């Protein structure tokens, strides 16, 4: 149902794809992060989002640089290492009508950022939180991150003796309302999950294995392209169906496909691949992840979703008018009120 008067390279928002791009990337050629940036661009373009209606956030790292490389027309804050969640939390109160997209790294989130990661989830901030997970510190040249698998060996670093932190397990433990895992090598799934996340109200954690081709891409490494291609095991085939295209869905209604209706009316189709999987059941999510870790397979897909929790800004009952547009008359109480207060001060 494309609009006939519209030039083919322009979406329903009247924008062409370039208007969703950012500055040229300065990341390494082949870096997983670049492909994720591309899927963010594609998803926003295809969803007809207005760039000015979004917000970008990141911490510090190669991954955290990537918001420079998408959505030039979107306000953003490249904050501090591990502290992106707090900056995003404050900023969203400025205009809660904007949808936030955050990009972080495994070091930025699971090492220095663990505390803020946990607490932003607990507050259910309305934000897509992408962890570009490569098991190393890219920007500081290849030290172990907390998600590196036990036994991994890296130049100058020796052998990693610790069990990895599982971003999705941690997200579930903190009661995240949307938890997904994907693989930068699986562009189609990455894009579908980003679209679903953008349609979710509340925090959406996307743990995307995004290989560092420079420092951690040997085939045995669990965050490499090679290992990912070998071991990726989708729990379902995901298709995102935008709001107005429900007609399209009919075909799918059948036993082998699960249908998740999102708040904005769009629909996420989960087509069965292996055994049945219900992403609305916490325990099966936990079991899935425990089992995947034990069997050392890279399961991907929409692991968990819970749609009825209020977001942080819901809880605070602020006006529809963005707070940052309220004028003085609505911010400074009248003089009489102060007289009353003075009188009350004994």
């Amino acid at each position, binding site marked *: 149902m494309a609009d006939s008067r519209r030039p083919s390279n322009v979406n329903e928002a009247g924008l062409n794809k370039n208007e969703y791009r950012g*500055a040229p990337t300065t990341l390494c050629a082949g870096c997983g992060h670049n492909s994720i940036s591309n899927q963010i661009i594609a998803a926003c373009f295809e969803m007809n989002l*207005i*760039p*000015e209606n979004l*917000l*970008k956030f990141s911490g510090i790292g190669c991954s955290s640089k990537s*918001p*420079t490389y998408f959505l*030039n*027309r*979107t*306000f*953003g*804050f*490249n*904050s*501090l290492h591990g*502290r992106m*969640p*707090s*900056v*995003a*939390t*404050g*900023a*969203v*109160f*400025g*205009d809660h*009508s*904007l949808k936030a997209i955050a990009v972080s790294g495994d070091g930025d989130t699971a090492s220095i950022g663990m*505390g*803020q990661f*946990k*607490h932003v989830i607990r507050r259910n901030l309305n934000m897509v939180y992408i962890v570009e997970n490569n098991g190393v510190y890219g920007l500081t040249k290849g030290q172990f991150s907390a998600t590196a698998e036990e036994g991994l060996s890296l130049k100058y670093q020796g052998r990693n003796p610790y069990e990895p932190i599982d971003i999705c397990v941690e997200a579930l433990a903190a009661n995240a309302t949307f938890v997904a895992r994907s693989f930068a090598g699986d562009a189609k799934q990455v894009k579908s999950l980003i679209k679903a996340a953008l349609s979710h109200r509340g925090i959406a954690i996307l743990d995307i294995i995004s290989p560092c081709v420079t420092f951690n891409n040997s085939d045995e490494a669990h965050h490499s392209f090679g290992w990912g291609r070998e071991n990726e095991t989708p729990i379902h085939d995901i298709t995102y169906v935008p709001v107005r295209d429900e007609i399209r869905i009919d075909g799918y209604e059948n036993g082998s496909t699960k249908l998740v209706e999102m708040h904005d009316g769009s629909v996420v189709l989960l087509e069965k691949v292996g055994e049945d999987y219900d992403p609305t059941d916490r325990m099966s999510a936990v079991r899935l992840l425990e089992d995947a870790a034990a069997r050392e397979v890279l399961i991907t897909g929409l692991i968990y979703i819970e749609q009825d929790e209020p977001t942080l800004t819901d809880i*605070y*009952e*602020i*006006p*529809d*008018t*963005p*707070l*940052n*547009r*309220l004028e*003085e*008359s*609505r*911010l*400074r*109480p009248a*003089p009489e*009120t*102060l007289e009353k*207060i*003075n009188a009350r*001060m*004994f």
Partner: protein
Amino acid sequence: MTSASPKVTEKDGLSAGAMVNDFSITVGTMNGSGSQTSNLTIIRALFKMGIPVSGKNVFPSNIQGLPTWYTIRVSKDGYLARRDDQEIVIAMNPDSFGKDLASVTPGGLFLYADHLRFDVNRDDIRVDTFPAKDLVRKSDTPNNLRDYVANMAYVGVLSELIGIDLDAVYSALDFHFDGKQKPIDINFNVIRDAAVWTAENLRPQEKFRVEPMDATSEYILTDGNTAAALGAVYGGVQLMTWYPITPASSLGEAMNIYLPRLRKDPETGKNTFAVIQAEDELAAIGMAVGGGWAGLRAMTSTSGPGISLMTEFAGLAYYSETPIVVWDIQRMGPSTGLPTRTSQGDLTQVYFLGHGDTQNLMLLPGSVNECFEFGWRAFDLAEQLQAPVYVLSDLDLGMNTWMTQPFRYPEDPMQRGKVLWEEDLEKRSERWGRYLDEDGDGITYRTLPGNKHPASAWFARGTGHDEYARYTEDPEDWDRNMDRLRRKYETARDFMPDPVIDAPEGVSVGIIAYGSTDPAIAESRDLLAKEGIATSYMRLRAVPFKQAVREFIENHDRIYVIEMNHSGQMHQILTLEYPHLSEKMVSLCHNNGLPLAARWIADQIMEQER
């Protein structure tokens, strides 16, 4: 109703040696025992009688069971500073009995509850006991409340002995319990019974008396943290993010009390604010930075340990030029130090807060009233100067009860600084750049998230950036930006509040101070005057300084810089600003956790001026 004993109504209090409305009372109790209500009741009653009064709470860093002291000073001359002398001491706590007894000034009065069985070895003071527990038992106080109410006994005894009007006491209780009759009666009955018992059993005394005055009608009674919170409320605070810490917590909690009452949106009835208790101070300031960047009046409040944790974000706010307000209610450091003792020890740290080259803006409130003023003004400054503004209060100012002038409604409208919205960008011919110094004052124009103009967006960062907020490592770009920040800092001088100067003609001795020491300085100047030493006084209200500061120093031969820290931190900052004047400046520091006393200041200066 008048005081239970007729004697008191006779105005014979002004006999020789009598100290009318001019002495200090210290009560030694156990914390968590409800004595705070008794002490506030005494203060409020005295205030109600029109007598200038001040209270200093010296409490331990725990919740219940340790010795705690409350000193009330009445001063017909309106002196509000702490004194070392205490003419009347009331002991309620066995653990501090000895200390309390020893602390009575010779010729003074020592009262203690008769369930403390100690023998008293001083004959240079008057000593009386009273049956605190008895009085409560005899009253119809419910068992579960008796321990708390026991402290009301000394209110009654004291009232009777020094002549506090029981009407005033009653209205103090009425205020405290918000008109709730039951608690008012329970407490007042004990007080009245104690007063009656005193009249009947204790020898009256004429030496220390209070008599009604009319010196408080122009004042209110409150604390600096409440004032700061209210100032922020009237300053249009939109985002308050905090993490609990003594002595700053009551600032955040006052917001929880007043914002819902005062800041429902007139149009929608919704909240025009958000108060978030963060998971720690890093998150608290991080949220404030996010909010300030997004155009909110954002603030956080903390104390030393929190400031230390905020250091990295402080640098980001400084360098990304994000307006935020940070209240530092100073307590004794280094490290965790003494959480319940006051100090002015964070100046140099805050001045240099953040790695690399930073110079921060500081406001220094000198009264509860000024806490209110800076509560709103700090936002104007932060948004006009696009920088973090640090307000350095302290525990004494923030948590103690002060008589202060009523809060003044902000005289001028909010100053939101250089912000461009859609229509502003529409109007422009030339391209806008976030860090483009169009006006030459170092302050550039910013746009805010939510702006729908396609040219409005920019990517904020703590890394090197050019005029268009693009990442750059170019040496010239870096230099140019740092020079502009320096320029902005110079511009800031004009925006910061003026120092308060009292410099009589021909006086050669100057005093420089700031913050909560103001009452002590004022009193010490009178003491010095009596000794024939005339002084000028400049109370600093902000860093960086104005021209006037330099002139004050130039116009005096010797300047004493008086502060409550160990290193003479303001003296250090003044030395850096005016090295060529440094020879004139003498650093006087006192920093043991207790608010400064006028006597100490006077002695120090006299020592050097004689």
